[in-house]
């Protein structure tokens, strides 16, 4: 009995092998590609959602599988979930991939790089295995600046706090400029999102439970990571964190911040929607509204946000298959225009900048600090 596979029983036996989750072209629906792994890593179906459903069904039915190969196939997935968006009958191939990951953990058959990633998250609270205290390096020295508008607890997430720290620093600057005191959670750890993607759902649930317990207090909680928002949404809690972009839009509306585009910068910006935006289109809308409010013309990809193809930032791809993850990011940038890109998903920003340091890809706060003039 394989409990993770058995839980997907309906999906395993309903797949009609239609191939939508492998690759499909449907211009009217804004669909140009489906699986980033098939596009940039291997064209084999075994790397796609249909491959995962077929492998899961075979394993569920008791067939002996080549587990090292299965692990290589299943852990070379960014878990972006596009396969689920395109499935004509609403099946969950990405969940099948996660279930296979979970079963592979129970068989102790995961690739060593995956094990290292999970160990890093559990030991140091971040996927890179950097010392735990590096997470709060975005926090400047304690400031005595007045905070007339209140206090905020800012949880930037691994990507903004470590992977692309300039985003967390920029966000904190904007919050302070708006008149708020910004607090970090001492010893703040990972919310479990990357661990969940690696197929360790139970430990991921424990991490978010711990984080929620520690964050619960008097202060509003602000998040930068979209994957972190997913973790919070999976956890039952009355505490409702606010995404930084939403928070900023609200402050601009109140007049707490006045921002104008710097005279020297172009006025066009392209939205880099992420797989997380597909699942929560509100962030696509919010970032678009923010850019417009700031006076920028926003270019939106024809397939956004429903059919964006993953840039390779998620699912452990940058560590597990770095060259393919880099190609995914490259393919994504090639689809978008030559103007600066802005993404609400800081993990995407970090991945683009790490795989191509010259890439003009920004998180919302960093974009504002580099492209706008602050008028407190």
């Amino acid at each position: 009995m394989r409990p993770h596979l058995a839980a997907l029983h309906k999906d395993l036996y309903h797949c009609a092998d239609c191939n939508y989750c492998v690759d499909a072209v449907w211009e009217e629906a804004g669909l140009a590609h489906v699986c980033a792994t098939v596009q940039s890593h291997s064209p084999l179906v075994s790397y796609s959602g249909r491959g995962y459903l077929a492998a899961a069904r075979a394993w569920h039915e008791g067939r002996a599988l080549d587990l090292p190969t299965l692990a290589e196939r299943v852990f070379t997935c960014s878990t972006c979930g596009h396969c689920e968006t395109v499935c004509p009958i609403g099946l969950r191939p990405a969940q099948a991939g996660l279930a296979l990951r979970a079963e592979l953990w129970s068989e102790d058959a995961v690739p060593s790089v995956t094990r290292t990633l999970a160990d890093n998250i559990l030991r140091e609270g971040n996927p890179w295995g950097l010392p735990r205290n590096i997470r709060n390096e975005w926090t400047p020295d304690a400031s005595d600046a007045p905070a007339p508008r209140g206090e905020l607890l800012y949880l930037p997430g691994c990507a903004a706090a470590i992977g692309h720290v300039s985003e967390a620093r920029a966000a904190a600057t904007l919050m302070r400029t708006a008149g708020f005191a910004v607090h970090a959670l001492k010893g703040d750890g990972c919310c479990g999102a990357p661990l969940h993607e690696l197929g360790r759902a139970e430990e991921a649930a424990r991490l978010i439970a711990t984080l929620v317990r520690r964050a619960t207090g008097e202060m509003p909680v602000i998040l930068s990571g979209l994957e972190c928002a997913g973790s919070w949404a999976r956890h039952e809690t009355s505490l409702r964190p606010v995404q930084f972009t939403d928070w900023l839009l609200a402050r601009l509306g109140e007049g707490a911040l006045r921002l104008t585009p710097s005279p020297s910068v172009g006025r066009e910006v392209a939205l880099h929607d992420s797989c997380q935006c597909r699942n929560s289109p509100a962030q696509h809308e919010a970032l678009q509204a923010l850019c417009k409010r700031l006076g920028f013309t926003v270019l939106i990809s024809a397939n956004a946000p429903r059919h964006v193809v993953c840039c390779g930032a998620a699912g452990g791809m940058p560590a597990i298959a770095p060259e393919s993850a880099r190609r995914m990011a490259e393919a994504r940038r090639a689809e978008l225009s030559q103007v600066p890109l802005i993404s609400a998903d800081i993990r995407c920003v970090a991945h683009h900048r790490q795989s191509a340091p010259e890439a003009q890809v920004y998180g919302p706060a960093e974009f504002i600090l580099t492209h706008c003039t602050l008028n407190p």
Partner: protein
Amino acid sequence: MNAQEDICAEIDPARVFRNQLDLLTYQRDCSVVAPGAATLLVRPTSSAEISSVLRRAQASGTPVYARGAGTMYAGGVNPAAGGVVLDLSAMDRILEIDQARGVVVVEPGVRFGSLSQALKPLGLTVGIIPSTAPTATVGGAASAHALGTGSARHQSFADEVVGLQVVLPDGRVIETGSAAAHGKHFHRFGMGPDLTGLFLGGDGTLGVITAIALWLHPLPEFRTTACYGFPDAHKAAGFIAALQSRELTRNVWYASGYEAGTIKGRVLAARPGYAPDAWPGFCVGLDFGGEEPLVQHDLSLIANLGAAHGATPFPIFDEVYFRHLRNEEIYWYGYAGYFSRSRCAILMSSLATPDLPRFLDSVQALRENEPDFLWGGAVVICRRGLHGGVLAFYDEETQWPEAQAATARAAARLVEAGCTPYKTGKIWAGELQEFTAYHQTLAQLKHSLDPREILSPGNLGLSRSHQTARPERKA
């Protein structure tokens, strides 16, 4: 060097796969047909590579199955005899768009979605686009007789093929149609018998298609839909026959007919309180495309023709269902049966328009005699005649062999009702063998081209013994 190593000796090793997990996804297509188990997967990029594989496979007698996206529902790509799967999806180039000759030439792995995307800016389209267009490949459509959007205007996919490039089982590469003489596709017929037709719908048994030339058509500038309700299928058949004989499908790209149960099911699912004075016994939906004045003119003629056959406009079916078929907003995968059962066996047949009532009687008889499955029936209206689809929804975990047997019984029943096999693959193999003179000739052709019978054994009832194991029909 063993036979399998020899087969792929001239192929880049990066495009040769032997792992069980990779082969798992090449066992079957969308059909009810039993899966096969190949031991080697090759992703060629040229006809020269395919030629090499076939020559070497011929020497060792190794079976070879060509495959596109595997979206067909006749089991043609299932490697029943094991051997090698040739995945043609890497051959995905559009080779030529020649507006002067009105021809587009593509490799077999080109998806219809990609082809439409390339032709649209030129104001062009191809004649037949299957409902699985986003994933289905042109090579698969040619090999397995696709139908869909365009059938009302142009008949079948095969009618739209100008010529082919084919790798024969012994590795020779031939061009058919005018390309055989001058290397350019502009005419299919004239040079003696139609060799192009030999490979269309051949399910890979006589050769591997490596290029397909299709006629180009203007992309319709105006589209609209209309649905008509008829008291019964007899009246509807009369209307459709009149429509076809007066060639009033000239500006209709897609047309289909629905029986009473489907009509009620679709409408009530969308409008639970809908209660007309009387429900139609049959409904015909027409999807028009062309220049607007011509379409409007034909719409008016067709409305009059419908009224003469007892039809009344049935706009609610159009609103809740039919018009959404355009751009494939609804797929055949979306049939309600999928949500109560796990998969769908589809048996596609051809029938003369007057046989529509007999076809529907057969579907009704299946419902009564095979209550373990959910049965559905629908017809696609062609330029001449109909394609009748019978659908059997079943639970694959518990009913797979039974569903195969039930499908075989359904096939026999359809032939008795005057239908002929369409999209043959393996699902119609047994019935095809019953047409003795035809099948013996087919087998002789097969033997002369492919004496060791390496190409797609089992398809069209052409196995190594010229007999295909057919599913047990006994209920």
